[in-house]
């Protein structure tokens, strides 16, 4: 990338693959399981986290020298909470039905381990620009997995994408030799999200053997 130095672009590219918050650090799993039954909420969630994490990282980074270390968690919480409320209000105003669908999970971005983790691990020790890039990178890494999982779960579980019908009608005939498409109800249930994430981890680690821990 011409815009960014090599070191800076690493901040964005690493979390997308080899240092992915979900598949490598196994953070932020809860929301990845809860809202990925469909593609649209997954994308909205991804965008929300990109906003919260990048802005939050910049704010924390700007204040990093004046936050007393004893109360830094509280300060971080206030920053996240403010940003999350902004996201929540915007969604309620402009996409009410979607906001209802995501329900409490937008609010629960506050507890998303990725966000507090990046604040603690990165923003508190780095300058704003680099923190901003780090925030974008990690949130995108999270979002990519969310979108992949959401894609497969909606496609195989409901036979739709963005609510449009993609896969065929259910089986008409019955009996042993019935053949036809039938939605896989298991895909819509949260356990299957865990298994899909597991399969992504499996594929990733078998492609890049360095990621395998003993």
């Amino acid at each position: 990338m011409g815009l960014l130095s090599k070191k800076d672009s690493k901040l964005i590219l690493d979390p997308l693959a080899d240092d992915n918050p979900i598949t490598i650090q196994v953070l932020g799993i809860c929301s990845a399981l809860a809202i990925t039954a469909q593609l649209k909420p997954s994308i909205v969630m991804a965008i929300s986290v990109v906003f919260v994490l990048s802005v939050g990282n910049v704010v924390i980074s700007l204040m990093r020298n004046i936050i007393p270390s004893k109360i830094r968690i509280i300060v971080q919480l206030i920053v996240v909470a403010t940003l999350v409320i902004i996201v929540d209000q915007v969604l309620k105003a402009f996409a009410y039905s979607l906001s209802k669908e995501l329900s409490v999970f937008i609010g629960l971005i506050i507890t998303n381990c990725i966000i507090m983790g990046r604040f603690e691990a990165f923003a508190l020790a780095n300058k704003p620009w680099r923190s901003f890039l780090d925030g974008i990178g990690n949130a995108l890494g999270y979002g990519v997995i969310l979108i992949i999982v959401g894609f497969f779960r909606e496609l195989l579980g409901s036979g739709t994408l963005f609510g449009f019908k993609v896969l065929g009608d259910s089986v008409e005939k019955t009996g042993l030799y019935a053949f036809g498409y039938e939605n896989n109800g298991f895909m819509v249930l949260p356990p299957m999200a865990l298994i899909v994430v597991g399969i992504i981890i499996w594929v990733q680690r078998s492609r890049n053997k360095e990621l395998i821990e003993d």
Partner: protein
Amino acid sequence: MGLKQNLHSLREKYKGTKMAPAFNALHTFLYTPNDTAHGGTHIKAADDLKRTMNTVIMALIPCLIFGMFNAGYQHYVAAGEIEAVTSGFFSSEFWTLQNFTLGFWKVLPILLISYGVGLGVEFLFAVIKGHEVEEGYLVTGMLVPLIVPIDIPLWMLVVAVVFGVVIGKEVFGGTGMNILNPALTIRAFLFFAYPTWMSGDKVWVEGAVERTREIANGSTADAISGETILGSLAQSHGVDYSVMDMFFGFIPGSIGETSTLLILLGGLFLIFTKIGSWRIMLSSVIGALVMGYIFNLVVAAGWITDTSKFYGLMSTEFWHHLLIGGMAFGIVYMATDPVSASQTNKGKWIYGFLIGFVSIMIRVFNPAYPEGVMLAILLMNVFAPTIDHYVVQGNVKRRLKRAKLKTA
């Protein structure tokens, strides 16, 4: 050259190549290998994994044959072509060639698909990972046809078997490493993925849906519910099968799970050959009876009346629970799976008791999941290592205490 020679030379030919495990497996499956250990071996036992697996399969064969007869019988009774059985287990209405033929041609494809796909996945993983093919799938492949409804579409079975073997077993490292029972994983997948094909009234009796359609189109055949007993009890419908029918297995249900009598004999055979754990079987039965009895007491005390949706199953006499659904089959063939069950003796009692207890609880409290025994066994599979851990720790503590007392 005989088959054995052929296999032998094939094996020699592929020795050291990628495909070696596959040919090795074929060779040792059909014949005892010629090679013996040359160093100092000290263990001489006939009950290797292959023998263990074959014993379980032998115990399952009667259930399979009965399932074939029953599939035909249920179909013809529902179609009104033959009369219901009247004279005990050896009724002439049941053991007819007509029944068997229909059942045989229905069950055979399921059996072939189950073994073909499952062993295919198993061979594939062995070749990729370069380890030997394990015998674990032999029993799973036999269990799968016995725990699915007769009208399950084959392609769903294929999807489920691939899922069950890969996610339930291979990702953990193959036979002996799996946390969950693979056959139950396959069934659980089917149950949650395609619920309309695994419950309700259209799959348990061969051709049930076509018949309903014919009746709707003006056919004169009698409408007979194709529901399982659990299904109708969960909706508080009456049951028109006698207790003897339930015990002998002349009822609709998954292919091999209906005949409590044959399962009982299979269970005794497993106990006699010391393959299955009698502790698990006995404690599961006790657990189920205790929970069932508690529910009976609740009904007797008048806390639940027949307006409640739980009434149908709660008021079922407690020992009937053992005869209906997959309870007996699950206890005898699934809960005793040596890999996923508890290993310690005390642990087996706890593990079995909780399986029985939780099965009946799920069965009664959640009418949407009538087959509680499947979920209960999977749940306890997950807890088995924890149970073992505390049993072992308890033992360690007790002995330490005793050692201290002695020295003090």
